[in-house]
Structures are given as structure tokens and as C-alpha cells.
């Protein structure tokens, strides 16, 4: 992907996005491009609007100004069936997995399949098993209810549901938060592996500098309502005090040790 990205290669295109609650402005004329096939890590301090940005892109929040185009389609203008078709092309993993608590893991994965396709129950069961193995859950997890799963397993199950329709674009909201370091490393490796084998574009909101290093191709930092993008190496040279603090604080340094600055 050398040189300027072609229009086709931009999966998410945000121009002049303004969002806010009440009097508070969260994003102030923000621009961002996410290219096909990349893993973009979004970081920022608490309250800087990472999750809000994600919710604005998937249409859960209406922006005050600006446009968000996903797959070239401007959100807010597409409606009904067109919007459904768009939603089928992305998958979202919410922070706590957001599994439907009254359904088993297999049923959770089959929800979008049942809604959007007319597969036989047998085929859906088989596909649920495929998704479970893709996210590294044992087959016997299929018939468990979300309340019977640990936090890490819930996230994997949530990821399996997000992958149910084989989306091209995957949104992850803090995929490694609340996981122990070993599970978090496992999850990072999983995301990378899935991204490679399924050819996904990944938009990942995170706090976790380890997972940025392990997974992200590019990083977008939210500072003062704007966004600054670059690789880790590029961002470390950025003079912004928050970015300096983030990558050069004790945690940042420890995580980045061994990578070239």
C-alpha cells in the first residue's frame, strides 16, 4: 500500500466530525481515514472520546457536524435496507462482549445468521462451531450461557458473534481490558491471526500499549478533540505532551522496550 491510498482503499473516511453532549464538545472537526486491510489502534486519555468515536462510526451516535463514510457510503443518509447491508459488512465487539444473556453462545452467534440468511439449523450449528474454533473457544462452550463464561471467554464469544457474517470490517472496543496479561497476549495474537486469515480491516479502541505494539499497523491518538495518526515510531517523535507522556511514561517505555524508537 505505497503512496497515497486510492479512494477504494479507504474503508472509513471521516471529515470534520463534531460530536458532543450538552455543552461539552468531544470531537472538534476531526478527520480520519482507515485503509483496507490495516489494523488501526485508537488511543487517548479517559474521556477523550475513543468510544464515542467508535459509536459515531457505527451509527449509534449522531454527529453534530461532519460526515462519516463507511465503504464509501455516507452514514445518516443511507436508510433501511441499505443501512442493513452496511451493518452486515461490519462486526462489533463491545467492551464486555454484550452477549445476549438469555441465549447460549451458539445461539448468540447464530442471531445474525438467522436474521440475514435462510440457512438450515444444521448449517448454522456447523458455522457456529467454525467461528468458535476461529476465536479459540472449545467446542463445549457452544451450549453454555454467557453467565457461565469467564471474562476472557465472553470476549472471545463476543468476537465470534461479531464474525458471524464474515464482516470485512471489525470494530473492537477495548478488546484486552479486564484480561490478565497472558489472556491479553493471546487475544492480541488472535486478532492478528484473524486479521491475516480473514483479510479484515480492524478499528481497535484500546488503552493497552502492549496490544498496540503487537497488533496495530497504525495508531490514531485522540488529543483535544483532534486526531493524530502515525506508527509508534512516528508518534514518539511527536512533540505533543500527552503523546510524549503516553509513549515515554514508565508503562509505555516498558512496553516498547526492544522496539526501535
Amino acid at each position, binding site marked *: 500500500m505505497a503512496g497515497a491510498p486510492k479512494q477504494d482503499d479507504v474503508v472509513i473516511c471521516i471529515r470534520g466530525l463534531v460530536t458532543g453532549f450538552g455543552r461539552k464538545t468531544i470531537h472538534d472537526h476531526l478527520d480520519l481515514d482507515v485503509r483496507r486491510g490495516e489494523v488501526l489502534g485508537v488511543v487517548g486519555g479517559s474521556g477523550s472520546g475513543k468510544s464515542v468515536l467508535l459509536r459515531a462510526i457505527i451509527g449509534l451516535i449522531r454527529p453534530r457536524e461532519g460526515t462519516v463514510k463507511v465503504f464509501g457510503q455516507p452514514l445518516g443518509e443511507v436508510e433501511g435496507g441499505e443501512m442493513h447491508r452496511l451493518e452486515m459488512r461490519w462486526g462489533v465487539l463491545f467492551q464486555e462482549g454484550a452477549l445476549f444473556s438469555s441465549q447460549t453462545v451458539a445461539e448468540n452467534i447464530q442471531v445474525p445468521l438467522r436474521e440475514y440468511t435462510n440457512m*438450515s439449523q444444521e448449517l448454522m450449528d456447523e458455522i*457456529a462451531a*467454525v467461528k468458535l474454533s476461529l476465536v479459540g473457544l472449545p*467446542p*463445549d462452550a*457452544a451450549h453454555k450461557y*454467557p453467565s457461565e463464561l469467564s471474562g476472557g471467554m465472553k470476549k472471545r464469544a463476543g468476537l465470534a458473534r461479531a464474525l458471524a*457474517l464474515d464482516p470485512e470490517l471489525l470494530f473492537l472496543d477495548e478488546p484486552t481490558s479486564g484480561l490478565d496479561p497472558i489472556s491479553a497476549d493471546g487475544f492480541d495474537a488472535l486478532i492478528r491471526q484473524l486479521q491475516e486469515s480473514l483479510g479484515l480491516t480492524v478499528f481497535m479502541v484500546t488503552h493497552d500499549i502492549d496490544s498496540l505494539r503487537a497488533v496495530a499497523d497504525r495508531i490514531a491518538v485522540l488529543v483535544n478533540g483532534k486526531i493524530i495518526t502515525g506508527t509508534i515510531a512516528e508518534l514518539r517523535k511527536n512533540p505533543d505532551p500527552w503523546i510524549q507522556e503516553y509513549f515515554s511514561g514508565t508503562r509505555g517505555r516498558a512496553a516498547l522496550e526492544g522496539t526501535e524508537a
Partner: protein
Amino acid sequence: MIEAASDAPEAWFTLDRDGGRLTLGGAWVTAHCAQLDKALGGQDWNGRGDVAIDASKLERLDSAGAWLVLRTRKSLEAVGRKVSRLDLPEMYVPLLKAVEGAKPCEPYVSRIPPGFRGRLYRIGRATVHAGRQGWSILGYLGRVTVEAAEALVRPARNLRIPAIFHQVEETGINALPIVGLLAFLIGIVLAYQGADQLKRFGAEIFTINLLGVGVLREIGGLITAIIVAGRSGSAFTAHIGTMRVNEEIDAMQTMGLNTVETLVLPRIIGLVIALPLLTFYSDVMGLLGGAFMCYFQLGITIHVFLRQLQDAITLNTLLVGLVKAPVFAFVIALVGCYEGFQVERNAASVGLLTTRAVVEGIFLVIVLDAAFSVMFSVLGV
């Protein structure tokens, strides 16, 4: 149902005439899997010799499609044919490898046997559950009684007065409009139906006796208790249940706060204060509704109404109705709080137990009302 995105080419497969070569093409993606599954299921794989699967013409492939490719290979092998090769575009090789590792889930076997035995099993399970529930509520009643007694002995320390008054406001004052309106309407209905029947005997004036005794002894209290069970009993369960889901109850316990004292007693005491007052208000509104109907339907003036009412009822009639209210209140609040503490940490549980609290609350109110009727008739009140 959404049809496949228009840019996705159809998926197809062909088996050549001697059955030695299976060609796959088009977009083997989730949107086409249902069709493909049917077509593949209808295909006869029998034949002789090796098969070569040529998937190099695939335009798109996703994990569901990859699974179908692998399953096709499996079904070929299942009929005893060897798959000599599987050609695939380079870019899809990692995907196929990732899907290949999938282990089939064992089908879910329900512990409940089918048929008659299953029904027996369910009945048995429900009975055991009901028994345990009853036992557990009894235990809870004991705990609440002990705590309440302790609180009443040392009210300054253990009784939370502001919380109690908050509950009186929530369950009593805020319920005034709905209770008043419904009682008024019930009064109208009762007077109308009574007048209609009694007119045949020329005894319209006794509509007032019917109304007075009916509303004060039974209807006023019952209607109010049922409304409050639906309104406040459910609110107790939902509130305490949501606190459980949020781990707030756990947090309170670790801080050494007594949950019965902080959450349950104010609700019970608040409702025990509020419900008798509400019942009195409801009685008044019911009689007002009746008087309204008598005036317009029978032409009975308010003067005549009041004089007849005084003949029909005594203070006892009112008290018999009112004495039941605190008992109803106690049961409604107890069940509401108890069910709130039974909530598990999932969304469905809150809804389920809220429903149960309302149903149990209304059930117990009516059962108790019947018990009171029997008791009063034995006592000759």
C-alpha cells in the same frame, strides 16, 4: 431478509461428467451459503476414482464458504472417494487452514427426557423449586422480623427515617392520582351495576348500602393493594435487582452495611405506613364515584346519599377494610424485596423476577383477603 450485496457474483459448483473433477467458482460467502448448502446436499457424490477439487476460480471466499468447501471434501471422502488435490487461490490458503482446525460441536443433549417422563420431570422440578422458594421466603421473613424488632428497639440507630419517608412519598403520595382515578371508576361501575339490578325490586336506594359495604370492606382495599403490588412491588424488585447486577449489593456488604436495614426495612415500613392511608383515600374516592353515579343515574342527592350511607355502614365497616392494609403492604414489600435479592447477574433475570414479584404479590394479597373474610365471619365482625 436481505439479499446478497449486488456486487457479489453468484456461487456455483459443477461436477464433470465422469465425476473426477469438481469445479467451484463465484463467491462462496455467507450470503450464498444457504443456497449452496441445499445444492450441495442434493448432489450425488457417488462415483469411482479420485476427485480433484478445483477452487481456483473462486472470486470470493469467507469462513462460512471455506467451511462448505471443507465439508464437501469430507462428504466426498465419506462415500469412499479420495480427494487427490484441492486447488485454491493463494490468498485464501490461510483462511482454509484456519477453518480446517474447527472441531464440530457435540449436539446439545437436554437433561430433560422427551414425552411423558419429561413432563413428570418438569412437574417434579417445579414442585421442588416451589418448596425451596417457600422455605427460603420463610427464612427471609424470619430475618426481616428479627432485624425489624432490633430496629424498633433502637430506632435512633437502626431506623433510617429519611429513607422511610422517601418510600412513603414514592409508594404513597406518587400513587395518589392512579389509585384515586381507578377507585373513582370502580365506584361508578359498582353503583351503576348495583342500581341496574336493584331497580327491578324497586330498591334502588340500597345501591348505597351495596356501595358502602362493598367499597369499604373489600373493593377499596383490594384494588389499592393490587395497584400497589403492580406499581411498587415491581419497583422494589427491579431496583434491588439492578443493584445486584451492578454489584452494588456486594459493595454494601463488604462495607459492613446491613442490606436488610438499609434497603428492606425502609421499604417495608414505608409501604406499611403508606398503604392504609392510600386505602382510606381510595375508599373516599370510590364512594365519591358511587355518589356521582347515584346523582346522575338515580337522581339521589348527596344529602340522601350521606343519610343512607350512615344507616348502611358503621365505623367497623371502615376499620375491617383498613386493618387488612398493613398486612397487604407487608407482604407486597417483603416479596418485592426478596425477589430483588434473588436476581442473578444477567438482564433476563431482572425481568423474570420482577414479573414473579408482581404475580406473587397479587396472589398473596388475594389469598390473605380470603383468609381475612373467613376469619371475620368466624369472629362475627
